[in-house]
């Protein structure tokens, strides 16, 4: 047990160091979210009517962009896991009896760190272009907790995808579905504006409660049970991905 903790801590240090020295990962993690924010607010925002309640599109869209960024960040995570698996260094870890969970925990921690940095940056840009949340301390803390949960869940899904793929390129490709998942939800446009057959999916997919609760909490509106739904989804996705990743790691390594 002590071993497992030291191993995980060491792997976290490694992945964070490697990630901070990989300019591609840093740029993808930081620049892309900001660009997405600007694209949605200035290019699409003028044409989108979110109906009533939201004075400015930036207020409506900010939570969606935050979740979208986590989806894009997953590509980097999946690729770095896949890259590790084909390298010789993984043999060194295995011959040191380092478990797959520790190796992946390192990647996930680095992924969470990248995404949190991006989240802070996106909030900053959002403020600069007029985002005016109306949350109290409780609302902010709850929002931070939900963001952390969704980023962790998406990072673990990405790590499992990285193990499933046979090459870093394929891993990057597989994560596109994560990057597109926020679109059929209430992230960017109200679900009512979508065709009827899509409503069922858009209203019940995991990211909808996440986005609804972030938006509600930040704008100081009532959120009902959606934060609990969001956390339940994140916990379930994380648990399933951790289990899948452990099994995939064992399968890859025999």
């Amino acid at each position, binding site marked *: 047990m002590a*071993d497992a903790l*030291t*191993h995980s801590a*060491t792997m976290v*240090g*490694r992945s964070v*160091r*490697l990630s901070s*020295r*990989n300019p591609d990962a840093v740029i993808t993690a930081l620049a892309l979210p900001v660009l997405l924010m600007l694209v949605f607010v200035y290019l699409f925002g003028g044409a989108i009517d979110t109906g009533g309640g939201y004075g400015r599109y930036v207020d409506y869209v900010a939570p969606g962009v935050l979740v979208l960024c986590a989806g894009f960040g997953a590509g980097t995570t999946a690729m770095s896991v896949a890259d590790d698996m084909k*390298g*010789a*260094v*993984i*043999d*060194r*870890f*295995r*011959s*040191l*009896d*380092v478990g797959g969970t520790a190796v992946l925990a390192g990647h996930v921690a680095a992924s969470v760190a990248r995404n949190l940095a991006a989240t802070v940056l996106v909030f900053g840009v959002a403020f600069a272009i007029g985002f005016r949340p109306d949350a109290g301390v409780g609302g902010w803390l709850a929002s931070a907790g939900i963001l952390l949960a969704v980023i962790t869940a998406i990072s673990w899904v990405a790590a499992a995808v990285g193990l499933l793929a046979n090459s870093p390129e394929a891993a990057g490709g597989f994560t596109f579905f994560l990057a597109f998942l926020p679109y059929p939800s209430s992230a960017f446009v109200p679900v009512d504006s979508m065709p009827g057959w899509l409503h069922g999916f858009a209203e019940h997919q995991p990211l909808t409660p996440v986005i609804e609760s972030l938006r509600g909490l930040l704008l100081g509106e009532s959120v009902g049970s959606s934060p609990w739904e969001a956390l339940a989804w994140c916990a379930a996705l994380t648990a399933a991905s951790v289990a899948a990743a452990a099994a995939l790691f064992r399968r890859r*390594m*025999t």
Partner: protein
Amino acid sequence: MPQPIRPAVEAAGLTKAYGGTKVLDGVGLSVPPGTVYALLGPNGAGKTTTVRILATLLRADAGTASVAGFDVVAERSQVRRAISLTGQYAALDEQQTGAENLRMVARLTGLSRPAAARRAAELLERFGLAGDAADRRVGTYSGGMRRRLDLAAGLVGDPSVIFLDEPTTGLDPRSRQAVWDEVRSLADAGVTVFLTTQYLEEADRLADRIALLDGGRLVAEGTAAELKQQVSAERLDLTLVSPEAYEKAAHALDHLAVRRDPGTRTLGVTTDGRAAHIRDLLDAIDPDRTQIERFAVHSATLDDVFLKVTRDG
């Protein structure tokens, strides 16, 4: 009665197939502790597969193996604590510095942070990577430096058995010499070294015992001297004056020719390298002294050894 010494590495009947292709076909071997053992063979002979099975990274389809007294399947963790593996490709992070890589490995072997830093510094010094090199990213290292750092990373946990998979492939002569010196000093310190190589010279210089692996089977095993008795250590290459002369000589020599190259009209014959033997061979093949244009004596290559061993087997 003296207790028999338990072998440091022991394997019996190791078999491994990928798809329908048999990579290992019943490999058995035994390595006494504190000795250097070389597994010698061409590409694709199954050397890496053997090492990966012994180092617990791969499971054999059949057969048993134990390392440092522990079963490689049932007691995998104990085996892993006792060994280290340095593969053909440097198992290091390019984006970390040499010192960071070693500290990381030291932490993974269970050393505390300060102890890991001390161990890393010690190994960097020992492998000539202290100072400037220690704080440079491995991505900027030369091939020789990488291999030294890789070797150092394998020694962090003070293993009693070290597996080196083609430790000098692709190295320049000076780096190769440095690796050889290190292997010898490890053996002097009582560590068991199990290495694979495609170079006869390397096995000859380093190993107490050599096993020849070909097509997934051990075709010969013994000390360098024992093996050399089985194969002639030298080869006489004869270049004939014309294609007709080549055909005639090739026919006359029949299976004695270990090398045939019609393009350059060259035939290779094994010899022990003595002048008298070479003179006899030349006279026997070309009594009129008109058919052979040139000759050259080569040290036997691994190919010759294999041709000989597989032909006799």
